[in-house]
């Protein structure tokens, strides 16, 4: 694991020496998050987001466990128990708002983390497994977030559950049976609410387990970096601690500031007012929307309006799941050996067009299903698939990349190491690194 020049853990106290011989947990921590993990010296602030995602998960687990002490998963009292958390439980409002907005922060951080990986080619060899496990974590997060949103048993909770479990009824022949099995009834009710609560409590720990595998898989080749160039020697790396513990600590402070502003000043900004109406199985809200982090996928679902061999409904469901499952194949769809988009002029443009495309899909997914938005969703959904299945494979075979620096150190000394995100991902300047400026 890691590089040969990684520092070895040397317990100094008799107690730590005794522990190291019996259960080397401090050694494991030292090798994963301490001085024993050498990291490229040129990581920019986009590399904070992995640690921030871990922090967000920790916040969700802690607030969630506390909320579960006051919540009752029963259709007759669930809504009231959430209101009692808001009004009666000491600091209940704080914990619930922290949990609800913490979910949004978790997705903001994870989406940035995913786009960081896309931009700097972190999904490519030898880090394919890191990427695949990341997509698994993303799917688990979506399932967890969906089931969590059902628990307050408001109108959006109920109808969200109705619509999402309705996806399964699109499966030919066995669809309705599967849906009834998932819900434990013919419509969402107590049985569904209880099992969603049970799974909502379980899945975050499964996520934590897959995160351990994700980090394990990462630490075998070591972290990628903004140049995408492999580490060549000891001069290219610095120990994780204190260099990146300090940098991540600073980033965590900024993250907490933004989180606190959302939590204390705009706690309902990202929520939906209809979810403060108790669930009513006989009345559908005029405009059903999922939480913002599902909007791009919801737009893809709604983009299919006409039958073509298969029913439109099945196409929508297949496309929505396909848009995520497609990411599993990304390491093999993009065959360019150059990782960082900083050195891939065409792929870099395609990346930013994809970002804009997903942003427009997100906007359409949150908007009512009028003709204009449906057509816009159709165009953007088509582009989303075209990007991964046509544009990226073609670019990766045809584009001529700009010259890569010989090493990370050379790039850093020539001031092209990408330590400043403004100079790499966000910059329009495309000055090529001067290979000999270092000397």
């Amino acid at each position: 694991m890691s590089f040969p020049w990684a520092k070895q853990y040397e317990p100094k106290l008799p107690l730590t020496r005794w522990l190291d011989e019996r259960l080397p947990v401090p050694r494991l921590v030292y090798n994963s998050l301490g001085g024993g993990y050498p990291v490229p010296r040129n990581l920019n602030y986009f590399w904070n987001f992995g640690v921030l995602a871990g922090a967000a998960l920790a916040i969700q687990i802690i607030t969630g466990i506390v909320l579960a002490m006051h919540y009752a998963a029963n259709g007759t009292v669930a809504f009231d128990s959430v209101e009692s958390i808001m009004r009666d439980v000491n600091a209940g409002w704080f914990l619930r708002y922290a949990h609800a907005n913490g979910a949004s922060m978790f997705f903001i951080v994870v989406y940035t983390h995913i786009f960081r990986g896309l931009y700097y080619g972190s999904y490519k060899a030898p880090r394919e497994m890191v990427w695949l496990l990341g997509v698994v974590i993303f799917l688990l997060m979506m399932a967890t977030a969906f089931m969590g949103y059902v628990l307050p048993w408001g109108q959006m909770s109920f109808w969200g559950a109705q619509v999402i479990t309705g996806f399964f009824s699109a499966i030919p022949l066995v669809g309705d049976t599967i849906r009834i099995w998932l819900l434990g009834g013919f419509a969402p009710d107590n049985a569904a609410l209880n099992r969603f609560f049970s799974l909502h409590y379980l899945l975050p720990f499964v996520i934590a387990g897959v995160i351990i595998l994700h980090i394990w898989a990462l630490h075998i080749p070591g972290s990628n970096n903004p140049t995408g160039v492999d580490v060549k020697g000891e001069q290219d790396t610095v120990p994780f601690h204190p260099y990146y513990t300090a940098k991540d600590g600073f980033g965590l402070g900024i993250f907490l500031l933004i989180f606190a502003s959302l939590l204390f000043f705009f706690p309902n900004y990202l929520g939906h007012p209809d979810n403060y109406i108790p669930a009513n199985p006989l009345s559908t809200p005029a405009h059903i929307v999922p939480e913002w982090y599902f909007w791009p996928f919801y737009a893809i679902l709604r983009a299919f309006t006409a039958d073509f061999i298969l029913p439109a409904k099945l196409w929508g469901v297949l496309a929505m799941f396909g848009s995520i499952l497609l990411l599993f194949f990304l390491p093999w769809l993009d065959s360019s050996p150059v990782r960082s988009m900083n050195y891939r002029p065409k792929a870099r443009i395609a990346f930013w067009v994809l970002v804009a495309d997903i942003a427009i899909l997100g906007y359409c997914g949150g908007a009512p299903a009028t003709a204009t938005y449906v057509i816009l969703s159709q165009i953007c959904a088509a582009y989303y698939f075209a990007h991964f299945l046509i544009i990226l494979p073609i670019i990766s075979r045809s584009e001529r990349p700009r010259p890569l620096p010989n090493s990370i150190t050379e790039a850093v000394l020539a001031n092209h190491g990408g330590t400043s995100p403004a100079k790499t991902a966000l910059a329009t300047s495309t000055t090529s690194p001067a290979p000999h400026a270092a000397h």
Partner: protein
Amino acid sequence: MATVDDMVPPGESPEPFHEEAHDPRRRDFINIAAVSFAGVGAVAIVLPLINQMNPSADVLAQSTTEIDLSKILPGQAIKTSFRKQPLFVRNLTPKEISEADAVDIATLRDPQTLEERTKAGKKNWLITLGVCTHLGCVPLGAGEGENKGPFGGYFCPCHGSAYDTAARIRKGPAPTNLHVPDYAFNSDTVVTVG
């Protein structure tokens, strides 16, 4: 590869170990049999774990509902509940019936006539689930003053599916007509659904 069978305990003749090599050997057979038996057991244990997720007896027990039709005037509809799902009961006007009959069923996505969707001699009583066949929203049109959509039946606000006066899908993403549950007339004014 050296296996346990190749090793001869001290003081014993190698003879019994090399007698004859059956394939599979007796030990392999015992191994396969034991693991298979445990596998069958594991599968058997999984069955109740899967089955517990199916609707429980009390949920299934709510499977019939009686409805009194005497208060529903022609042109009116009521929204009631069947298996915790909304149920639409509609008394069609002669105009609505003739509109439904005027449609060429070959042009429909889910071809069905109004006769097939109602009981013989009770063509004016249209009883369907109020669950849009797209993703399960409750369509509008049963309540007083609600939007009945371009075909005068029901209109789902979620994704814009429009149903006609026989609750057949005419426009929008829903794949099939509104579902007609099993029901029977007990008398001229009472039906049992389920």
